[in-house]
């Protein structure tokens, strides 16, 4: 089960991860973009962490909506509207639930990632954050069919995310700023795929505790 409390811990851990890996994300983006991804993610999730006390009093759906709006208005760049959309579209599936079971979590991410793809007009192998989310959702579905425990599902998703993230290294970028580099984008890990990996890892850690 993903409870309200888990979600708040997830956000807190995400903020910690973005702060801790700010420089790494900066360097990845400096190599094939404009170098602001670390600053953007740290600004957005830092703001989200400040909002946690307020969010404690909200319903689960309101929490996700609020998180989406905070990210939308503070991250900036291309990744801001993408992450913001993920949470806003996901929030729409939550309804009045106060906690999500494993299958409701999949519904949440399916809708969220569908929103991200529609917003970014992206496909797999474009060398973006979607190259993490697509394999993660496939893995999640397989694990759910195999009736695995929620925490085990998430552990498997972290592995899939890591594989997806590393798989962006040999890809040729076809979306975002990196696409202007053409062949020169090959050999670098995508910054957005990397921040997505940290988000998924933070979710796993919030449940494992």
């Amino acid at each position: 089960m993903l409870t309200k409390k888990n979600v708040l811990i997830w956000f807190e851990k995400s903020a910690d991860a973005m702060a801790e890996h700010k420089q790494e994300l900066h360097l990845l983006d400096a190599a094939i973009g404009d170098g602001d991804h670390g600053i953007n993610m740290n600004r957005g999730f830092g703001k989200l962490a400040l909002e946690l006390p307020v969010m404690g009093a909200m319903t689960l759906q309101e929490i996700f909506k609020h998180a989406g709006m905070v990210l939308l208005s503070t991250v900036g760049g291309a990744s801001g509207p993408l992450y913001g959309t993920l949470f806003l579209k996901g929030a729409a599936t939550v309804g009045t639930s106060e906690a999500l079971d494993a299958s409701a979590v999949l519904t949440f991410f399916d809708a969220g990632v569908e929103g991200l793809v529609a917003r970014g007009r992206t496909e797999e192998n474009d060398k973006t954050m979607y190259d993490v989310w697509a394999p993660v959702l496939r893995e999640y579905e397989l694990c759910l069919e195999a009736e695995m425990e929620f925490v085990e599902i998430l552990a498997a998703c972290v592995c899939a995310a890591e594989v997806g993230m590393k798989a962006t290294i040999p890809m040729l970028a076809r979306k975002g700023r990196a696409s202007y580099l053409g062949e020169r984008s090959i050999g670098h890990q995508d910054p957005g795929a990397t921040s997505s990996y940290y988000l998924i890892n933070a979710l796993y850690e919030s449940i494992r505790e």
Partner: protein
Amino acid sequence: MKKLINNPSDVVNEQLLGLAAAHPELHLSLAPRYVCRKDIPQGKVAVVSGGGSGHDPLHCGYVGFGMLDGACPGEIFTSPTPDQMYECAKHVDRGAGVLFIVKNYTGDVLNFETSAELCKMDGIQVQCILIDDDVAVKGGGHTSGRRGVGLTVLAEKIVGAAAQAGYSLGACADLCRRINQNGRSMGVALSSCIIPEAGETTFLLDNDEIELGIGIHGEQGVERRCMASVDILVELMVEHIFSDPEYVRVAREMNSASGEWEDVQLVSTPFSRGESFIVLVNGMGGTPPGELYGVYRKFAELCDEKGVSIKRNLVGTYISSLEMQGCSITMLRADDEMVRLWDARAVTPGLCFPSCDDVTSCGTSNAD
């Protein structure tokens, strides 16, 4: 780094406060951040643009009578966020809808589209029209497409005049799309620039090197080559513009009936002999006006040789990259309607067009 600034993280807000102090006719909001006109008439379509800061006078300097109704500045070279455009649109909408003029950068496009959806949910009619005129980007289909550069200035002037003249949202959008499909730009950088928060140059150029095909953020151009005379550099830029083949791409616009996004195919056909243009010779921030006239001299000569006619011109710093040295050339194949709207009165901090009664020869020396 030597700049007239205080704390680098306060630069954008402090400069906006200065703009607002110098121009009390403008309204400034800092949270969320936008600048807008105070005197927008009821029933007029509102024209709004925005993007990263550091390109002054674009966009905030073009807010005023006959151009933009609102502008949303992001951090330096960073897209603004959807809450800015959403609040700005709510503030400037006078019941006739809001047109967003968006330069083609993934961040700008995604943030403007998101805000357009928020506006739509509030019942505000909106449309997003893309500007993607930078011919330095080749093979548009495999990338995020051409960047929006100098043509944005011309679009804001002409579409702003149309909105002031009472065009509907649909007509403003059609005009803006037509401008985009008839414009091409090419730029060159002689030096880099420093983003205050970064504190160091965004790219490195040796003393005798230049970057041909630069965008407005110091992005990689077509070619890095050795410095040459102004005549040679202008020839190179003009060659890129005139040899640019047909350019086809897909833009996302909002269907006015259904309110849903739809993909629209845009086609820019090559320029040819006998056609008429509005042109911009633009400085990147660190090039003196005199050098820009040096560019214009050669440019006008080449246009003459190519058998095209310059109907109107603008020479100066209108879309900059901080203190970068360099220039860009923008050509808009203009029909009579565009020229008429170009001549219409505009009063903004960055661009003033006297009313036609006051002056008959401003920037029209080569006309007819």
